[in-house]
């Protein structure tokens, strides 16, 4: 049960991180993993094996859209951007997590 909760939290937080990042700008997979790692000081890390199944799942659910474009070095990369459905999903998701951390704060969990 603990493992299932942990895995749900990890998955939920990972989805939130990706959707939040893509709400700011379109990025390709490598940039997404680097941005998240840097901005969370390494607390959230995506390997190739964990990132792409999640991106494809988000794409299948219609929350993000991928399209091939050349990056600054002229190489083709698949850029992901948030769809209108993704934007709609992001707000309640952020709200849910805010409530979750507030609840943990009230229980005295430090830095939650």
């Amino acid at each position, binding site marked *: 049960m603990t493992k299932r909760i942990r895995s749900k939290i990890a998955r939920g937080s990972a989805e939130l991180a990706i959707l939040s990042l893509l709400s700011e700008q379109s990025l390709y997979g*490598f940039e997404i993993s680097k941005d998240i790692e840097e901005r969370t000081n390494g607390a959230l890390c995506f390997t190739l094996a964990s990132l*792409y*199944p999640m991106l494809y799942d988000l794409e299948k659910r219609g929350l993000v859209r991928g399209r091939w474009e050349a990056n600054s070095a002229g190489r083709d990369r698949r850029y992901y951007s948030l769809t209108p459905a993704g934007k709609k999903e992001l707000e309640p998701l952020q709200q849910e997590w805010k409530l979750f951390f507030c609840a943990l704060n009230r229980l005295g969990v430090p830095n939650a």
Partner: protein
Amino acid sequence: MPNWKAMVRSRLETFDFDPKEENDVINELAAHLEDLYEEGLTQGLCAPDAIERALEQVADWRNLSRKIQLAKHPEGMMNNRTKTFWLPALISLSAAEFSLLILSWFSLQSQSPSWSLITIHTSTTSSTFPLLAYLQWWIVLPFCGAAGAYLSSRSGGRTVACLIAGVFPWIATATLIVFLTLIGQIVPFHHQWINFITALSVVSVPPGVALLAGAAPFLKKPKLRATVG
């Protein structure tokens, strides 16, 4: 520069979706590995170390293939389970049972002497086999185990799926013996546990070992190796 596309393609070989979609996935993963490799080089790593570090991102390519398949086409996963486990397991079981049937039939046709007949008792039933056919069966079993494990491995089954598909005839036999013995608990029967142990050790254990011997070569994961070109 390593040939990342070839490297990814050789590892992700179990997709069921159309070639364009598959190419997109391969190109995307290859591009990610390329970026990781170049990042490694800019951080001062030598090329082989940069390749190794990039490949460390994927511990289990089969698992990644399955996750991608699940993410892109969740409706296809039942097919995948059937392909990687149930079909190989049933083929292994059918081959084992059919070969025993054929060998027994030929042996009985050739008028086996009574000393060469062995009778296996469980609490509710007993079966007589020609010993020679039974010994010949043990020789055939590694091939049945190998067939199950190979088919599972070829379809992208995980090591545990290959193993279980390979030794499935043993699992089925052992389950049947345990089941019949448990039923025998309801009906009083003398020497039940001795018969159970005899049946398990004679009918089940050697075939299990033979099947495992056949399946073993297909249980190894493909070794990751960089393709430089």
